[in-house]
């Protein structure tokens, strides 16, 4: 420790609490602990990072989280180490009423801090952009005209599909209070409450809603896309693990929002094709009653609705479900 000095006003002032020995110890400990911490985060914790590796997008997200956690580790360790060191060794001694040393700017420290943090932030910006492109949007909804499609086959046909063709499988996700339904336009357009996907086949989710805003969240597949009424929100993924996965609504959408979940399943190609055949037959009678497949649906276009509401004297909504003056309060 440096010796006490006196301020201009005559009050005793401590010149500094630091010594070169402190700096050497702190730097040494920080480097050693950071190396250990980074290895633990990257190699031990990394393989278990959420959301797992059940799809291309999920695996990419798990890698991204591992990279970010590894980069953050030295920063966290540095802060905690400095904090702990200050508490342990730079405490004011009993009876010591001297003021702390005046602070002065340090060009070297400031320049190092600005350059280092700028480099880290810019590098992460580049990394993040690349990671958006590589897994075709990272599993997030990109609106009706996706920018990031890297590696995804084109929608060569919207009326037929076979495994391993250069034609992406399209699955429409329809949110409604309070259930998810799924439509398969390439298999006759049947709609079902079950979500099945073939393993190792690229999938294009077309996500929309019939009423309020929902959010389609297939957590372990690393897919999350808002379901907005009147909007087609496209998200991509390629499942790579057979078995069940959970689907939840991630947007508060009303009283039964918490119950709006499903269990999807990733099947082998042959089982998936058999499933589509079974569902097509089972749902044939209702499939022909569905509106023609479209990327969005407007419930106010139900032809009979205006007639029914007029007959019942319910003309306020102009023949639609929605009154322009809604929401009406009780």
């Amino acid at each position, binding site marked *: 420790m440096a010796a006490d000095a006196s301020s201009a006003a005559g009050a005793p002032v401590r010149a500094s609490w630091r010594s070169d020995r402190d700096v050497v110890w702190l730097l040494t400990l920080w480097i050693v602990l950071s190396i250990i911490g980074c290895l633990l985060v990257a190699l031990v914790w990394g393989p278990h990072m959420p959301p797992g590796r059940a799809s291309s997008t999920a695996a990419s997200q798990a890698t991204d989280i591992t990279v970010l956690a590894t980069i953050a580790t030295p920063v966290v360790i540095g802060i905690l180490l400095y904090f702990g060191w200050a508490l342990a060794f730079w405490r004011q001694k009993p009876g010591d009423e001297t003021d702390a040393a005046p602070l002065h700017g340090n060009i070297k420290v400031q320049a190092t801090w600005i350059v280092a943090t700028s480099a880290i932030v810019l590098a992460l910006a580049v990394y993040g952009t690349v990671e958006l492109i590589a897994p075709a949007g990272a599993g997030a909804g990109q609106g009706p005209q996706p920018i990031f499609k890297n590696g995804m086959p084109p929608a060569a046909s919207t009326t037929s599909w076979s495994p391993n063709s250069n034609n992406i499988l399209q699955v429409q996700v*329809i949110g*409604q*209070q*309070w*259930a998810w*339904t799924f439509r398969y336009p390439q298999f006759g357009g049947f*709609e079902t*409450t079950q979500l099945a996907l073939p393993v190792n086949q690229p999938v294009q989710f077309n996500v929309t809603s*019939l*009423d*309020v805003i929902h959010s389609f969240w297939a957590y372990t597949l690393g897919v999350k896309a808002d379901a907005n009424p009147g909007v087609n929100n496209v998200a991509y993924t390629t499942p790579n693990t057979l078995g069940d996965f959970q689907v939840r609504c991630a947007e508060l959408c*009303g*009283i*039964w929002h918490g*119950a709006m979940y499903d269990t999807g399943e990733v099947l082998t190609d042959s089982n998936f094709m058999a499933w589509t055949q079974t569902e097509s037959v089972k*749902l044939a*009678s*209702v499939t022909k*009653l*569905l*509106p023609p497949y479209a990327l969005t649906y407007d*419930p106010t276009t*139900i*032809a*009979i*609705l205006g007639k*029914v509401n007029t*007959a*019942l004297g*319910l003309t*306020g909504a102009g023949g639609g*479900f*929605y*009154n322009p003056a*809604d*929401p*009406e309060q*009780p």
Partner: protein
Amino acid sequence: MAWHSWAQPLDALRRNEVDPVSLPARVATLVVAFLAVVAGVLWVVFDIIGPQPQTENYTAYAKNGQVNVTMMTTAQTTVTNKPDWVSYFIQNPSTKQFDHTTYFAVPANTTVNVTILGYDGCTPLRNPLWGQVAGTDGNVENVQYYNGKTLSAAQNISTFDSWANCSVQHTFAIPNLGINVPIASPTTLSENNNLCGTSPCTAANQDQNSPHTVVKFSFKTPSTPGAYRWQCFVPCGLGYVDGNGGPMGTPGYMGGQMEVQA
């Protein structure tokens, strides 16, 4: 003198020698604030969300692996302070009265024979998928009114076209069990204009003969106890945004819970 008497405490205050607020005043403020927060939470729970509807317990009435549950739909709820809301009622298995509730309990691993008296008029389904019966025995419901026609006798029906004939008034769906039953509506719009005007639609209210359908179906409860929510998929909360507010968003009207008991 006046200046002097004010200046002394202020000077002391600036020197941090006295507290601006006394300890009793601080404690009182804290207690009042705490009680205000508690009162606010209780108000939201009991007045905004409302009390949980009563449960009609059918478990003791099961016999030979079966139990009969009777419900009713009405175009209004005149027994509440929301008379223009549509609602379900459930028959009390003991008194046979229709109570204003949507909560009921049935035993596990039991066939539930449901009868729904549908006294409401039609509303087209927003999603025609809900026009298909699913999850019941044979994936059918038994009804005499079907797609705008009166059948000579009740038949098992699997699919309704609510867009062509406005033949559905509500649905009874338990999503987690894959159950969906469209509730057929009376045959014509003219009958809809003669719907019963009080609720429940019973002999006591001289409304039991108003236009209505009788929908019957059966399903088997899971073998393990649990609570399963059920709801209507017709956006029948007219006057509310998306038709899903009001009775659609309030327990005890168009959605409820089936408790499966051991």
